[in-house]
């Protein structure tokens, strides 16, 4: 600045050309922001052009006058004469802590190994059964042997659940497969399955009225071909339908026909949704 102030004529300016820096320019943009261009010389003598674009916003907060007064008061005691702002010798910032309240928090959640951590992570992500949408693991679903999951049943996901589940029981993730299940693909989860069914000819019916009976569905669906099995999920306590069912046909073409015709059919006060059941595993 002193150089600028002391400058008397343009000839000198010419001489100092490499040192002379253009003035700072501030341009107001249309969107309310400001562009500030400043020039400076780096230690190695190179000129630097700095362009900053800033937006000024006014945030108004109502502050207790006592609080506001204290902020401007001088410090005292050991802090006497120290500049405003936190001092590094007394104040520091600790590492980030994730605190997320959950209902049914258990101390053991944090003390177990990776298995438990994984389970914990899954827990936070909200447990939702892929079969009946209840809040338990798919592997714990009372209908797991009889029904296919709704939506996309990704097999890898299924295994994940299995591991976490074993960890919870203290089983320690054993890989033992009972002799009668060896050699099968996707062992374990389907153990004790009551029905050997052809998934290709099974329809999943959702949005079923809670007053519907299995017989109603059987009557409805047998119009399209031979129905081998009808399963209507019912609540154990109330005995009412849970809102979805599975219908298996002997023939896939019948199933396709039924799927086409019955999707959107009104049963009681609700409109049915019919689609092919996804394969379990």
């Amino acid at each position, binding site marked *: 600045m002193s150089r600028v102030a002391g400058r008397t004529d343009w000839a000198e300016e010419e001489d100092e050309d490499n040192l002379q820096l253009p003035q700072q320019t501030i341009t107001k943009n249309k969107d309310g922001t400001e562009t500030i261009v400043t020039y400076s010389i780096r230690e190695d003598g190179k000129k630097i052009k700095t362009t900053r674009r800033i937006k000024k916003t006014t945030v108004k907060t109502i502050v207790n006058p006592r609080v506001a007064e204290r902020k401007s008061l001088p410090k*005292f005691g050991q802090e006497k004469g120290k500049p405003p702002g*936190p001092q590094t010798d007394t104040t520091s910032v600790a590492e980030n802590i994730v605190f997320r309240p959950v209902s049914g928090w258990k101390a053991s959640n944090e003390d177990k190994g990776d298995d438990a951590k994984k389970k914990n992570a899954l827990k936070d992500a909200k447990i939702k059964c892929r079969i009946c949408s209840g809040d338990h693991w798919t592997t714990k679903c009372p209908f797991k042997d009889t029904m296919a999951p709704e939506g996309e049943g990704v097999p890898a996901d299924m295994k994940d659940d299995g591991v976490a589940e074993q960890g919870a029981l203290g089983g320690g993730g054993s890989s033992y497969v009972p002799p009668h299940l060896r050699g099968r693909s996707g062992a374990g989860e389907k153990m004790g399955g009551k029905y050997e069914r052809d998934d290709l000819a099974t329809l999943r019916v959702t949005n079923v009225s809670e007053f519907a009976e299995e017989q109603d569905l059987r009557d409805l669906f047998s119009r399209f071909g031979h129905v081998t099995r009808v399963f209507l999920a019912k609540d154990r306590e109330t005995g009412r339908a849970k809102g979805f069912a599975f219908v298996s046909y002997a023939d896939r073409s019948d199933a396709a026909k039924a799927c086409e015709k019955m999707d959107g059919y009104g049963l009681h006060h609700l409109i049915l949704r019919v689609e092919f059941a996804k394969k379990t595993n």
Partner: protein
Amino acid sequence: MRPILLSGHERALTQVKYNPDGDLIFSVSKDHVVCAWFSHNGERFGTYHGHQGALWTVDVDPTSTLLATGGADNTMRLWEVNTGELLSTWDFPTAVKRVEFSPDGRQLLCVTEKRSGHLGTVVVFDINPDPKAQQSKEHTLRIVCEDSKATVAGFSYLAEFIIVCHEDGSISQYDAKTGEKLFNTQAHEEDMLITDLQWAPDRTYFITACKDKTSKIVAADSLEVLKTFVTDTPLNSAAITPVKDYVILGGGQAAMDVTTTSARQGKFEARFYHKIFQEEIGRVRGHFGPLNYVAVHPDGTGYCSGGEDGYVRVHHFDKPYFDFMYEVERERAQELSNL
């Protein structure tokens, strides 16, 4: 949530407290200094010098002009918050374990230790809220605890009762005017020291922390136990959070056993319980020693904890804390919004 670490003390913290405006935190420790901090950024506002022994307790009046402290040098002292000036000193035959202002700031209560032939007492003084005024040295009320010594005490709503918690796990209620004992109830397990008493914002109920590993919410007028929070560690402190219906409990293995236990086993965590459902909802770890005191910001936006490790950790809650609701709470909120 990134806690702010306040390391202004050289020894174990004994009490930390927010002022009612919520912008300051006062901390006392076994080194002889009182510290005042800005709660939003952890900047130290100042220190108060004069005590000759370990400090046990601190409290600030409702307008944040006067600060009372008590310690093992058998004195209770009154300070001016903004300047750090010592205004008044009261001498006692034994250590001062707890001080508390009445809700209007015109009375100050102090609990003295039972030792060397002196019984534990609760003494009340009238306070002139003007920092320039001379404070009266004469007490207006003196309650002597003959059965079991008092550990903590406080004024109820409108300073109607004085609630005193005892070493033997019982809680008594005294008339704050006459000093007459109205009630005594064995709220906690027998012979288990009650370590803390903190009030709900309206002072109609309070929460206690006890060495029997439980914390209880008790009604101020009937001394009826309303809620019980069961933990697995001796508790040193308990606080009720405004805004959200939680309580924060702090404790951990006793200081003398700490070196034989790891940080994890020591249970040096702040435990969050749901105030209504009495169920644990989470923990915040960070201290290397037991938590000696937890205090909640009066607006419910954060809390701070003082530990045996000599640190104060100031936490500002973030979104998940405020968003968390039980299913029934969510349904209720839904219903209300539909109206």
